[in-house]
């Protein structure tokens, strides 16, 4: 019997895990990724170990990326989007690949294109050395840079055409692993994210740590000494229409704080919270350790004022003190949450599967959170709702197992 084909939409941790599981089971996989790199959001995250591993899962993304790139049953389509998808006997899919892209067969990862065109973000560099190629053409910059793109590569690995090229695929089943969109902190205007350089998001923090090796303040590059984390930014908020807990922000803030503190015990870190999502096997014990190193204040602040040297004055209310005080910080980290992918409505219409009231993909069976109303389609990862790395991988494994059953490969 010919091996079955499965298409996976989205090359983040969930999509990669589903792809790898299915390839290992002997199926042919087409992994379609809109951006120029595999790894999604999770590949940007840094290791949060102190003297011991804090089980953040960041390294498992790196490992999975390596496994997927090295697996010849997985055909990776980078810089590619779904144009249309039709269910007949299986699925007929039309893909669109951007007008310019780097051909993985010819690219030697020499980095000449990046050196010459990184200035205006025309060529982007992947977060992981396991990205193949390590560089990609920025889809938003193609039109005005076609000539430069044509000439820059000595190997002729950059393909430039007049318009996006299309490709037809068939698949016996589809896995939707389109992930999430991080909360836009500008929607909580009280924090001045767009006005004060040293107010950053949790995602900015990861990028800064990755680029600098330490937590540098955006305003002057100096190492941050006195740091505030504000929890639940964008989550659990009726005004924003986001009533869900994003589940990942407490763990990432606390792990990051502990890891920073481990490297530099002199750091002064405060976490402002409403209640700590203290779930999982080892997290309660970890939370107790954190209380020795971090100041916890159970009130979400709402006033941040700029003072000298890029520092920020915050009005904070510690119930134990009884009265509010003004206190300066040199960096404020907003623990932003997981929002439905901003393209979910479009994707939902394309694939004819429903969204839930929050805008995530709706599982049709309460007992199987990978199920959809469309028989051969399965959801994996944060496309279905907030999840951490480990939960996304487990969910993707469940989706892969659903695919295998649906296709009759397993019972």
């Amino acid at each position: 019997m010919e091996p079955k084909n499965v298409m996976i939409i989205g090359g983040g941790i969930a999509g990669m895990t589903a792809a790898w599981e299915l390839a290992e089971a002997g199926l042919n996989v087409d992994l379609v990724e809109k951006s120029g790199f595999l790894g999604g959001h999770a590949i940007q995250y840094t290791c949060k170990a102190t003297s011991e591993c804090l089980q953040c899962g960041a390294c498992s993304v790196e490992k999975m990326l390596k496994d997927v790139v090295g697996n010849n049953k997985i055909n990776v389509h980078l810089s590619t989007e779904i144009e249309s998808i039709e269910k007949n006997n299986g699925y007929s899919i039309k893909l669109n690949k951007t007008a310019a892209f780097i051909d993985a067969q010819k690219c030697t990862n020499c980095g000449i294109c990046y050196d010459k065109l990184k200035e205006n973000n025309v060529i982007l560099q992947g977060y992981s050395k396991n990205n193949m190629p390590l560089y990609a053409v920025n889809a938003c910059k193609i039109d005005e840079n076609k000539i430069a793109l044509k000439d820059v590569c000595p190997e002729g690995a950059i393909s430039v055409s007049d318009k996006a090229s299309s490709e037809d695929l068939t698949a016996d089943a589809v896995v939707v692993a389109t992930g999430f969109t991080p909360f836009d902190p500008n929607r909580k205007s009280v924090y001045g994210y767009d006005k004060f350089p040293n107010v950053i998001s949790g995602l900015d923090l990861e990028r800064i740590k990755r680029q600098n090796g330490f937590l540098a303040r955006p305003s002057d590059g100096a190492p941050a000494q006195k740091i505030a984390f504000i929890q639940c930014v964008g989550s659990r908020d009726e005004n924003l229409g986001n009533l869900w807990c994003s589940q990942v922000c407490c763990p990432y803030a606390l792990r990051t704080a502990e890891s920073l503190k481990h490297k530099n015990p002199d750091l002064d870190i405060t976490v402002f919270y409403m209640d700590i999502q203290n779930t999982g096997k080892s997290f309660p014990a970890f939370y107790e350790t954190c209380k020795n190193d971090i100041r916890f204040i159970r009130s979400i602040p709402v006033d941040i004022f700029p003072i000298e040297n890029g520092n920020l004055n915050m009005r904070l209310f510690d119930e134990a003190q009884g009265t509010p005080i003004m206190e300066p910080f040199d960096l404020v980290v907003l623990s932003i949450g997981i929002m439905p992918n901003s393209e979910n409505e479009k994707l939902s219409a394309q694939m004819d599967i429903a969204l839930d009231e929050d805008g995530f993909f709706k599982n049709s069976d309460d007992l199987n959170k990978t199920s959809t109303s469309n028989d051969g389609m399965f959801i994996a990862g944060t496309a279905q709702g907030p999840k951490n790395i480990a939960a996304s991988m487990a969910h993707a494994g469940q989706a892969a197992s659903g695919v295998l059953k649906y296709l009759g490969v397993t019972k």
Partner: protein
Amino acid sequence: MSEPAIKLGGKRKSTFIDKVKEVLPEGGNLNLCLTCGACSSGCPATGLEGMDPRKFLRMAALGMDEEITSTPWVWMCSMCTRCMYVCPMKINIPQLVYYARQTWPREERPKGIVGSCDVALRSDTCSAMGATEEDFQFVVEDVLEEYQESQPEFKNMHADVNRMGAEFFLNQNSREPVTEPDEMVPLWKILDTVGADWTYGTKGWAAENYCMFMADDDAWKHIVQTKIKAVEDLGCKVWLNTE
């Protein structure tokens, strides 16, 4: 943290918060609190009398009616509604405070607020400081004349009183004409610069409404109706209350 633990009573009584929920749209969202404390972080009255908006709401939710209806903190709230503005769950804490005020016997409410309301109720000016129609008109005309002369660029500035059919009917807090008359002028200049068609009135001119702060619904209503009548009698289209 050294305070003794709060002891809760045995049987659950019909609580104050339940009664307030009944009169507010959506129950004022009073049972949606996530205890995040954004209200208390942003409230100017946090920490006064050992109270803050979150603590107040939590105590109400726990049925601690006696404490809720006796704390003088409710009179320190300025009804600015900032707690509700920053609340992720849009909880109407100011209304809870308002109804807690109503449980106070009139004679025990703060003298300053009660006295100001009483004075305002005495005449159609609604002035809490008792400034009369004649005094108000005299001060406005006197100050206007002074500025028209001393600042030639404003020699044609208007500050009319009782001009029929003006677009805007402007209120004025009593404090300015009575104690700081010059403080009226910056707004006049702004209105003059933008070419606004406005007037004061001798009736209903005072902007303040202490009867609202006293949580006396009938008196509050009387004050508002007196002002509305003044606006309508002059045939103005828009009532500008600067409070």
